[in-house]
């Protein structure tokens, strides 16, 4: 490689740095936490399969808000009350002042006269004891005073004012405390309310109850009988019985003779003559008698015609129609309902030997039943072409190229292969397995390099391998257990390998998270804070193989993903609680935890392919953070129970999510935070999803041992939605212990895909 090429590339990179105002990564520590402060509930307890209820947090927030509102309302109410109290107080004081209740005026003689203020007849006033008003006008009708405001004069010569009739307040007061005997009527004599006494009320009640009004009257007085009930001993008359009671009646004899004569003459019949039975024939109805010839209607269905008799119905059928003895036997053995034919063809020499047909009546009857009762309905066939109901999708053949067959099987791992990745130049495939090894293969299936990252006896499964996305270095990051190894495999040119080593060793000068820096990172209260990761050199034997750098975090790393520039790397360890998502800076050997608290169990995390966004997927949600502005940008709710994997379209506006509950979800980030399309094509959990970096393809890998290839075309303008067409199901991996395909990766240029299977193989499909 010429010397000019790397320098030019480096220049480009530096230009990129200047042009896009990217987050500089200097301080990522906890920067994204303030947006999470109110989410106190961490879903630590939900790893045992309980459904994480992320909504709870929000609900609690809302509740708190409502409580606040109520409380503030109370405070306002108190304020009002306080004011009214302070207003009332001076009035009360004013009433309490003592003043003489009379005025001194001059009378007619010029003497002093005390004039008392009119006593306000308030409730509890002393005046209530005084006798009720007395009639001072004498025995004259009240109507004489109709034109005056007063009724007579009192003892002082003052006018007795007419009582305030109909005043609303009085009426209300009266209605509240009804005096005894209140009627609501006005006494015409006094103009006062007319009250009734107890006796009057009882009288009225008795009248109302239809009882005798006065007490003196007794309705149940003892009966005085007019006739005696005593039976007399002696008859009133002694006359004998008359003769006519013994002599036969001549009149009756005459009537009987008349009847006898009538019977003899036959005028009277001793019994009813029997009625003629001719009318019974009319009880049979011809239901088609009145049928009119109908015009041929579309819906008219003529009665089906009886099949004409065949040869087998003949009395002398040809011999081939006659049943053999065996057939006859079979026919007789069968249940009458199961017989194919109702009759057996039989041969007679002459027509005269044909007996009467025994089944005739039954047959006619059944035919009539058929005609009369069997519904004859024209069946309307649904004239919808089923293919027109399907959405119009291009045929898979038109969407070539896409992988169709397995081209290479990579054999060598001694346990299930967990992860696989294409190198950035597409010439190598790296795979990591439960046997603790990382292996690098050529595309024709030849194993080129391998390294045992942990002890061979108790191997830590290699959960993820990912290449550093740059073509001038050749660096592989491999996560095994809690350790993450950086590998520069010695299978490339020396220049590239040297560049890779330089990149890996550059951070040793900083040693920020190393042992020396432990003292530097102390929190405000002086307590020593453990760095989230410890960077170090691996063992000498590994260094000799090309494994040049490693760091260890606190819990097992499940997912790693590089930033596109290759300096940042995020690791996700779902069981890591506070430090489950860590962003590492390779050039400084620095590890930072961007979230103090994460709502939920982190599953995977990924950098946006072009913008300074960072996506973190918990079990149910995907949150997108802006690393530059340090804020939460978006929350995506795929609706899956447990997200297993996600990938961001290289264009940056679309996202696919795979979940353990067998769903593959396509999200359009501009459209909604709900999925644009949900696909359930796998009978088992989906383990991995991946977009092709150049072609409109994406794939998923499932535990049913198959991969599905989709054509997913994203159009630039916002008017058109993405076209998603499933194009191919790739089968071949065997399912072992309910695990099928564990990971997939696309070739960076060609439509080739490599999959890692639990059957200890990787497969390349093209």
């Amino acid at each position, binding site marked *: *490689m*010429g*010397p000019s090429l790397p320098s030019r590339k480096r220049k480009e990179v530096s230009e990129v740095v200047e042009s896009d105002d990217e987050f500089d990564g200097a301080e990522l520590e906890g920067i994204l936490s303030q947006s999470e402060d109110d989410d106190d509930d961490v879903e630590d307890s939900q790893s045992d399969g309980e459904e994480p209820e992320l909504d709870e947090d929000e609900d609690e927030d809302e509740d708190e808000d409502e409580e606040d509102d109520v409380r503030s309302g109370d405070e306002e109410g108190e304020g009002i009350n306080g004011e009214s109290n302070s207003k009332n107080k001076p009035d009360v004081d004013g009433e309490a002042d003592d003043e003489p209740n009379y005025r001194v005026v001059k009378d007619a003689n010029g003497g002093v006269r005390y004039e008392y203020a009119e006593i306000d007849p308030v409730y509890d006033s002393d005046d209530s004891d005084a006798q009720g008003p007395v009639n001072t006008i004498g025995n004259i009708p009240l109507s004489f005073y109709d034109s005056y405001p007063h009724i007579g004069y009192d003892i002082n010569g003052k006018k007795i004012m007419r009582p305030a009739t109909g005043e609303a307040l009085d009426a209300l007061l009266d209605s509240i405390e009804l005096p005894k005997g209140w009627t609501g009527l006005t006494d015409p004599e006094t103009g006062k309310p007319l009250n009734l006494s107890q006796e009057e009320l009882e009288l009225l009640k008795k009248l109302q109850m239809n009882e005798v009004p006065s007490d003196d009257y007794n309705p149940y007085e003892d009966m005085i009988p007019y006739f005696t009930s005593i039976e007399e001993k002696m008859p009133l008359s002694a006359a004998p019985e008359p003769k006519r009671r013994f002599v036969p009646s001549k009149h009756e004899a005459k009537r009987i003779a008349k009847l006898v004569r009538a019977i003899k003459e036959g005028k009277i019949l001793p019994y009813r003559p029997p009625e003629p039975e001719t009318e019974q024939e009319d009880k049979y109805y011809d239901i088609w008698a009145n049928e009119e010839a109908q015009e041929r209607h579309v819906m008219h269905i003529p009665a089906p015609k009886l099949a004409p008799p065949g040869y087998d119905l003949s009395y002398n059928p040809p011999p081939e129609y006659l049943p053999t003895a065996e057939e006859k036997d079979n026919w007789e053995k069968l249940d009458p309902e199961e017989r194919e034919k109702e009759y057996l063809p039989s041969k007679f020499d002459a027509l005269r030997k044909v007996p009467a047909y025994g089944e005739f009546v039954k047959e006619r009857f059944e035919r009539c039943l058929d005609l009369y009762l069997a519904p004859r309905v024209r069946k309307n066939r649904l004239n919808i072409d089923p293919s027109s109901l399907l959405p119009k999708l291009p045929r898979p*053949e038109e969407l070539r*190229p896409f992988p169709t*067959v*397995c*081209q*290479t*099987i990579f*054999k060598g791992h001694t346990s299930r292969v967990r992860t696989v990745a294409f190198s950035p*130049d*597409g*010439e190598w495939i790296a795979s990591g397995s439960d046997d603790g090894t990382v292996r690098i293969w050529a595309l*024709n*299936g*030849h194993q*080129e390099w391998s390294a045992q990252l942990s002890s061979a006896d108790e191997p830590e499964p290699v959960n993820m391998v990912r290449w550093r996305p740059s073509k001038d270095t050749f660096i592989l990051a491999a996560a095994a257990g809690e350790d993450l190894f950086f590998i520069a495999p*010695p*299978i*490339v*040119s*020396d*220049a*590239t*390998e*040297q560049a890779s*080593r330089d990149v890996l060793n550059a951070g040793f000068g900083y040693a920020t998270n190393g042992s020396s820096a432990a003292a530097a990172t102390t929190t405000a209260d002086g307590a020593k804070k453990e760095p989230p990761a410890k960077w170090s050199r691996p063992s000498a034997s590994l260094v000799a193989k090309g494994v040049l750098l490693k760091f260890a975090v606190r819990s097992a790393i499940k997912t790693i993903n590089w930033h596109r520039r290759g300096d940042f790397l995020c690791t996700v360890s779902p069981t890591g609680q506070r430090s489950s998502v860590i962003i590492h800076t390779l050039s400084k050997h620095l590890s930072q935890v961007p979230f103090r608290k994460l709502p939920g169990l982190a599953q995977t995390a990924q950098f946006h392919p072009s913008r300074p966004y960072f996506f973190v997927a918990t079990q149910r949600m995907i949150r997108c953070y802006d690393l530059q502005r340090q804020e939460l940008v978006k929350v995506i709710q795929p609706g899956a129970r447990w997200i297993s994997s996600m990938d961001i379209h290289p264009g940056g506006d679309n996202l696919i999510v795979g979940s353990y509950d067998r769903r593959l979800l396509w999200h359009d980030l501009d459209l909604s935070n709900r999925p644009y399309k949900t696909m359930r094509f796998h009978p088992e959990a989906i383990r991995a999803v991946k977009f092709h970096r150049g072609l409109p393809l994406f794939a998923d890998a499932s535990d049913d041992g198959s991969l599905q290839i989709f054509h997913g075309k994203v159009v630039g303008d916002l008017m058109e939605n993405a076209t998603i067409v499933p194009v191919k199901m790739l089968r*071949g991996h065997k399912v072992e212990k309910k695990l099928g395909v564990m990971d997939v990766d696309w070739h960076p*240029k*060609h439509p*080739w895909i490599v999959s890692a299977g639990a059957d200890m193989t990787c*497969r*390349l499909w*093209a």
Partner: protein
Amino acid sequence: MDASSAQVKVVFTTNEEDLVLPESKRQLLVPADIKRYGLSRILNSESMLDTSSPVPLDFLANGTFLKTSIEEYLKSNGLSQETTLTLQYVRSLLPPVYEASFEHDDWVSGVDVLSSTSPAGLLAGDAAVNERVASASYDGLVRIWNPSGTAIAVSAGGKGEGHTQRINAVRWLSPTQLASAGLDRKVVVWDYKEADDDFSGTLKPNMELWGHGKNINSIDVNGSTRRILTASSDGRVGLWSASKRTAPQADPESLPSAHNTKRAKLSNAGSTAQRGPLAMIPLHEEAVTAAIFHPKDSTVAYSASLDHTVKTIDLTTQREVSRLTTMHPILCATALPGASLVAAGSSARHITLLDPRESAAATAAMTLRGHVNMVVSVAASPENDYSLVSGSHDSTCRVWDLRSVRLASSEEGGGSVSEPVYTIGREWLKGKKLPPAGDGAKVLSVAWDKTWGIVSGGEDKKVQINRGNGLLPS
């Protein structure tokens, strides 16, 4: 004569000038149930061609080889027995016969043959040329074999001399020189010396050629001009001189000593001369998989790449002259000397015949379909212009006859399509079903020589030799 032996009128035609029938004998009534063998015997009889020794013939009816009886052919094609059938007769390709397998320690990535009829052997002129096979293996060793399956010479591995990593290709430059290249980015030119007893020899590295930045995928040599062409994954085609004297000094930056790695120190320990390229031509965006000389003009070369293109290069100006774009990544290429076509094997499991001439109307002359995995090696027939052999990851080599052509259906993308005449499986599989994805038996390299027959090496760590005894008699 009973009713079953109906007769069909056939007309014999041919393109082979030495086998032309006289005009009067071209039409013939033959029994309908006759097959290829019977027709061949009729034509070889005294009354027809009157050949001194019988020439096995194959018959092309309407562009396809007649494999059944004429009657069945007519029936399957819906033709009446009264039609006159035109049969073109050609010399028969006899099925290749398995000869031997040479066992290796690791995968065999490249084979080349040396014989009096091979290109390198022809250079020797009248001098006697031994029959040898050179094989390149993934263990980094070049081996020389004699026909009885003995490894006469093995290159020195590892320490300083020879290759440190796997070798991808090996070629005979001349009966005493070989060139090999591989993953360690260098071309090694070997001096091969043989003892008089024909059973031992030595391979000594003559010089190392440095300049590529990545894996070298294939090499081609031109013995007369002593030039080497390499195709590398760094997207460049290298042109090298095979003689130490004319080769320029290597760019020190490209040498492993420029980088102070442990591996570099190891590989630099040897004392082999290091030389650089005559030209390093950046042509492709992606890995170049094949670079081949024009069979007749040593100043023209073709390069094929994973970026779907085949380019014609003028080696004097080191410029790209023209390019042919196909639909698929191309993994191998060879030039057909007679037809001025380039056969390119693609990752989409077929071979495309490309016409690189400026005047060509269509770039893709024909498509050869039949492989079920990537085609990684093709070799032209040494004897005629119309057959070639291809090796694929599906564990088979297939022999193709370009004369057997039919029009492709629209599903296949139109154009002309041909099917393989013979399929050569790996012998140790004993005719079992093809392993899925060629697992364990991928063919990685194939060579075809008149003397040796078809020599192929692959993942099964064997070089397999199949010879058609009189496969294509002259």
